[in-house]
Structures are given as structure tokens and as C-alpha cells.
């Protein structure tokens, strides 16, 4: 049953990907500006410019350009960056590991700490602890990343000198960026966990469990948390794509390479093939994240896979 569900959901990705590729291509090409102005230099002639426009096929109708791009993509060819002068696949390959490293750690950090904090705040009897966690959640959801990043640098790198100010060498350089990105995630996950737990706790079956005399701890770990995890998994799945490309400001402040930084640089220079390649990667990551989330939900909750197949 589950396998069939996964198969159909994967099949659905194909038409979705194609529609997304059209949208990405059109948005990128309809932006004002063009990459050639960022490529030519003083001393070259207007003829040189025209030759470059022709070389990259930018004088062709958009439809032709789209099919060239998507046709090459079917052969696994992401094309050649116009301004950055390298194969797009190489550029993505060089930047992706940094994004994955940072993203995966921030994801793990925000999931674990978020679920723990959310659980504490939903179950604690201490008003102080609850207020503290709620305050943390509010702060975490509202503080802008770049500001937090600079604050982290000033305190932990400049004052205490525990970690390097910036860079991407060694685990030390990962701590502050992971904390910065994770902070917002922790707040989000904690909030969702807390709400879900409080909802589940009001269910009749929980009252029954208490009446049967089960210890509170067992009820929490065996019965409440598995139920409460459903919305948490949905939220986490949606963050997978975000984590790959959403760290731009943090990458910028900490001087780290990454997919987000590559995308922003390419966008500024209107380096079409790079922008398209990066956006497509991010879209795929979001789709895969959603798929994983749905599958995980289906695996956790028989009602979902029964209802959808």
C-alpha cells in the first residue's frame, strides 16, 4: 500500500517539474537586464557584443531558448554559465556541499531542540519555564537572521573569541551559522510541537489512559508525542527546500559559499543558466521534501494512506 502511494506521488512530480521549469524560465528571462552587459568589457566593440548575444542564443525567440534549455536538461546538461564562464553543474556541485552541511545541521538542531522545548513548555507545571520558552519562541520567530548573525559574531567571535568570525573551514566555523539559522527553526518547531501536544492532550483517549493509571511519562512518550508529530513532520518537510537556499543572508554575513549565495550573485548578473539551474534545484528540493513529509505522515498515520490510494 505504502509503496504504491510513494510510486504515484513520485509520478506526480514529473508534470509539476515541467510546469515549474516553464515558470522559472519565463520569470528569469522577463526580468529587465541581460547577462551580456555583465560580460563585455571596455575596449571590446559593439560587434563583439552582437557576436556574444548570438553565441548564447539570446537573439532567438524565448520559446526556442526554452526548448534548447529543457532539451539539454533531459540529457543531464545544465548548460554553461554566461558570466561566470563555468559549467552550471560544476558551480552547483561546488556550492551544494556547503549548503547541505549547514542546512542538515541547522535542520537537525532545530528539530531536536524545537521538539524538546515544545514538549517542555506544553507539559511543565512551572510558570517560569513556560514563560521563558514562550518568550524564546516569540524572539526566535521575529529576530531577523542577519542581525542575529552579527550579534553572534560580536559576542562569541569578537568578545569571547570562541569561534572564528567567518569562513567555512572546520567545525568551529559551522557553530555560529548553525545556531543563527537554527534559532528561527527551533522557535517554529517548538511552537508547532507545543500546540499539537496541547491539542492531543484534550482528546478522550488521553483521559482514558490517565484513568487507567498509566504514568504521565509513558503517556507522553508512547501516546502523546507520536500523535503530535504529524504537524511537526509537515512543517519540517517544508523546511528542507528552504534550508538549501534560504540561508543567503547568513551565508553572506559569515562569508560562506552556498547555493543561495550563488543564486543571488547569478541573479544580480542575470546569468540565466545559473539562475535557472539553482532555482530548479531548489524547487526539486522543496518537492522532494514535501514528498518525504507526506510519505512519513502516511507511514505514521494509516488513515492518510487509506484515504489517498
Amino acid at each position, binding site marked *: 500500500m505504502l509503496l504504491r502511494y510513494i510510486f504515484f506521488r513520485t509520478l506526480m512530480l514529473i508534470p509539476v517539474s515541467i510546469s515549474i521549469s516553464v515558470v522559472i524560465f519565463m520569470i528569469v528571462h522577463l*526580468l*529587465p*537586464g*541581460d547577462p551580456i*552587459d*555583465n*560580460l*563585455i*568589457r*571596455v*575596449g*571590446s*566593440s*559593439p560587434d*563583439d557584443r552582437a557576436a*556574444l548575444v548570438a553565441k548564447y542564443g539570446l537573439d532567438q525567440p524565448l520559446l526556442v531558448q526554452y526548448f534548447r534549455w529543457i532539451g539539454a536538461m533531459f540529457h543531464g546538461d545544465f548548460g554553461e*554559465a554566461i*558570466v*561566470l*564562464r*563555468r*559549467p552550471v553543474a*560544476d*558551480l552547483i556541485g*561546488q*556550492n551544494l556541499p*556547503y549548503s547541505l552541511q549547514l542546512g542538515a545541521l541547522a535542520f537537525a538542531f532545530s528539530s531536536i531542540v524545537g521538539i524538546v522545548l515544545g514538549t517542555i513548555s506544553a507539559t511543565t507545571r512551572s510558570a517560569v519555564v513556560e514563560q521563558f520558552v514562550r518568550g524564546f519562541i516569540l524572539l526566535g520567530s521575529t529576530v531577523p537572521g542577519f542581525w542575529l548573525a*552579527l550579534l553572534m*559574531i*560580536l559576542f562569541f*567571535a*569578537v568578545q*569571547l*573569541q*570562541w569561534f*572564528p*568570525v*567567518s*569562513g*567555512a*573551514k572546520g567545525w568551529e566555523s559551522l557553530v555560529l551559522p548553525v545556531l543563527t539559522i537554527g534559532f528561527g527553526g527551533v522557535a517554529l518547531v517548538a511552537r508547532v510541537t507545543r500546540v499539537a501536544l496541547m491539542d492531543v492532550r484534550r482528546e478522550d483517549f488521553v483521559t482514558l489512559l490517565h484513568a487507567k493509571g498509566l504514568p504521565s511519562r509513558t503517556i507522553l512518550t508512547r501516546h502523546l508525542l507520536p500523535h503530535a508529530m504529524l504537524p511537526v513532520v509537515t512543517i519540517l518537510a517544508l523546511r528542507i527546500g528552504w534550508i538549501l537556499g534560504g540561508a543567503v543572508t547568513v551565508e*553572506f*554575513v*559569515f*562569508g*560562506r*559559499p*552556498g547555493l543561495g*549565495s*550563488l543564486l543571488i*550573485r547569478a541573479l*544580480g*548578473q*542575470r546569468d540565466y543558466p545559473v539562475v535557472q539551474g539553482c532555482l530548479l534545484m531548489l524547487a526539486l528540493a522543496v518537492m522532494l521534501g514535501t514528498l518525504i513529509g507526506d510519505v512519513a505522515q502516511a507511514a505514521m498515520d494509516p488513515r492518510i494512506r487509506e484515504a489517498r490510494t
Partner: protein
Amino acid sequence: MRYATKTMLLSGTALIAAGFLATAALAQEATIAFSSGELGATSYNPVTSSNLNSATGLIYDRLVEQDADQSYHPHLATSWEEADDGLSWTFKLKDGVTFHDGTPFNAQTVADWIPDFTGTENEYLVAAIASVEVVDDLTVKFVMSRPEPNLLYNLSSAFMGIPGQAAYDAMGDDYGVTGAVGTGPFKFDSFAIGLETVLVRNDDYAWASDLSENQGAAHLERVTFREVPDQSTAFLELKTGGIDVLLGVPTDFLEILKAESNIATIQMPGTGINYMPINVTSAPFDDIKVREAVGLAIDQDAIVASIYNGVGAAAHNFLISSLPESQVDPALEVSYDPERAKALLDEAGWVMGDGAVRMKDGVPLSVKLFTQNGTEFTALTQVVQAQIAAIGMQADITVFDSSTIRDEYKENRHQLAVRGYDWNNADILDWFFSGERLGYPNISMWNDPEGQRLNLVAMTESKNSAEREANFKAYHEYILSQHLFVPLYQPTTNIAYNKDRVTVPDPIRGTRFRSQTVLDMTVVE
């Protein structure tokens, strides 16, 4: 208990810090952060790249070097001779030069290297070279298809650093990414795109140009170039010792840096101009009197004093003052004269109304003032707006990103714009004023038969450098007489370094931070 933990942490930090300092003092190495303009280079292949950073200049040597005063100095070429008709150049090459991979540098290297440019985006640099003849092992002759008095300028550019041909051919597309071979004072060690480039000393180096004191191998054994895009982060790295040298410090950061006891700054003469192009096709600027009036309204000295704290220089024509072509007839230079500006506007029929804005036939003198986002031009644009308001012209500021603003120019939707360029050659005049590039780069939208004639003479009919200089000066003077733009400011290139860690020669020779400076850098013991 709590106190004990704190003490342990503190002493641990101190120990680590002490350890850092100890290794730093022992090792002859320095970390340099690129300026924001040279971030994001994807390769150290000078032949094919469109964007090269400062580290490229350390891996490769060039035939010719250019000093800050724009004069040319021998490097891998010891001397050169230009034929009277300009149709050939002969270069004598330095003896005993070897590439990092051990292969010798000689006339054949040059003959093999020039054709590498064919079909690349950088081909225009060698477009005038018809063929390269090997005269003897250390003499090479460029046969020209047309005179190119600008050849030495091209040869001194970073794009004409000479790569080792064996490695260049063998590595294919990976050349410049996984490895690079030159004759420079530093060897390519590793390159992590967007992060850092590590170079190690070339111990055999003995062929420096006369721009550096040190004629042998560098004092530094290892140089790490880092990409730190955020200026605040870069400043904190410099302050805490994470980097030793910061290239391209914004002028408004200089005051903050001066407050730090361990940081010193060096100002190099810049290689560009900030200016305000005027769209001559858009009324009221189709009237030359109105254009001239706008120029007379700008107080360049006040701009230098109020925005830039006296750093940099006022600009009164289109070229940086170290270029000989900038020495134009003083009567043509653009300077502050508000009374004359007001008189010109009166003559043009724009008379002061009841408010502070002039009117003509019931239409107020209101114009569009565009600029690019980024902090560089924000304050400058506001001051320009205030200065032209003083002669009764109201300007509304719109801010665009750098790609979008070019589309606005191409669509001819602009009137005035505040922007800058960075180029130390008179052919920038052709770039921004040629009638073949209307919209962008010719933002002034100026296309005039006499201008085109002078352009053609300067660009193609100059047989030698003296003729070229005279021709570009004439073109420059004609452009000034037409009031197509207002010169605003000549920025400096600012470099900051940690003086407890390294020494950097001041003044810096050359037009930009390159091997000649790094060769003379030392680590403070």
C-alpha cells in the same frame, strides 16, 4: 563552581589565542580579503575568464607592468620597440624565467599563448595582432593587422598574465580551477570557490619588475585570499586577526578604522570617476544651456569635503588625473559657478517662479535622477539633488538594481543618473560616448557627426602612443564642450591592514594591489 568554570573557559581561550599568535608569528604567512568588486571569481584562467581577482596577479607575470602614474615598466619583457608605422612590435624577453612546473619561459611560449585567445570573450585584447614570430629564443615580434598604440595597456592587464602552455593544454576545462601554472612569485595551492584561495611561495622567483624593492622570492611563504562579502564581517575579521589585509575598504569606513589602534590604512589613487550622465535627447536637456547649467550647479569640492571627509579628489573632466588625456584646456573643465548656472537657465527661458522651482511655459523644471542601489551612491545622489535644487531644478530620485537600470537607459527613460566607472585608460571615452552604443553604455544618448569622426580617429587612426594621446585629448575636449555629463568625484582605492601582523609598502606601486606589493610585504616579528 560557576566562577571556576568561567576561569577555566577564560584561561582556555587565552591559551588558544596565545597559541594562534605564536604560530602566526613563526609562520611567514598572511591572509588577505578581496574587495567586494572582485568576489565570485570562478577560475584562475586569465585567457577565458570574465572576472579575475587580485590573487591572479600573484600567480602570473605579465610582459609589461603599469605604475600608478600610468607609465609602463618592463617585466617579463625587458624592452620593446614599436615600428614607425605601428605595424609591428618587437619584445626582448627576460632570460632564465621558468614556470612553476619547471618549463622554461621563452619566445615560443608567447607565440603559443596569443592564439589561445581565439574564440574567447577576451579575444579583443589581441585582435590587432595578426601573427607572432619567434625571432630568436628571447625575442618575439608581433605582426599587427592595424596599429595598436594601446597594446602595452592590454599586455599589462590581468587577463594577459602568461600561463604555462603545457599545463594549459593538458588541463583543459579544469585549468584555473584545480590548478594553474604561471611564472609569478606565488604558486597555486588550492582554490575553494566562493571561499578562499591558497598560494605558496615560488622559491625560485628572481624576476620581479622594478615596481618592487624585493627582486628575489617573496618574504611571505604563504598567502591566503579570502572572500568575505559583508563589509562589517570583514572589518571584524581584520580587528580580531582573522585577516591581515583588507582590499577595497569603502571610504565611509575609514573613520571607523582609524579608531582601531592595530589597523593602518593606505590610500591608492583610484582608477575611476563618479559622474552624472545627462540624456541629451530628453527635454529640457536637449538644450545645451540647461546641460551646462546643471554642471555649473555641482560643487565638487563640497562633495569631497562633506561626503568623503576630504579623501579622494574633485573630478572636473571625464578621466582620472593620472592619464595624460585628462590634461585638457582648463576653460573646458567643469567647476562650480552657481551664478552663471542661474544666468544660463534664465537665458534658456527657465525663470524662477513663486516657489523654489523654475518654470517655462507653465511647466516646472522637474527632472528624473536615477541611481543604483548599494550604499556607494546614496549620499552622493542626495547631495547632487540638493545642489541642483539650489539653481531651481527639482530632481526626483529613483533607485534601481544594476541590471534593471541598464534597461531603463536602453529604453531611453532616463534624464540624469549618478554612477561611476573604474577604468584607467582614455578609451573609456569611446565606451560611454560612441554613437554605436546609445542607451547603454552611451547613457548620454549622444550621437553627433563630429563626435563620431573624432572617435574614429582616436580609436583606429592613431599610429603611435603620442598620436593616440593627442587624438583622445581632442575627442575628450569636444565631449566636454557638448556638456554631456557632470564630473563629480575621483574615489581612492583604500586598503587596510593589521600593523601588528604585517607591513605593507606605502605608497603602493602599480595601478592596483598585485605581486609588486605582496613581494615587499613582511610579517611583523
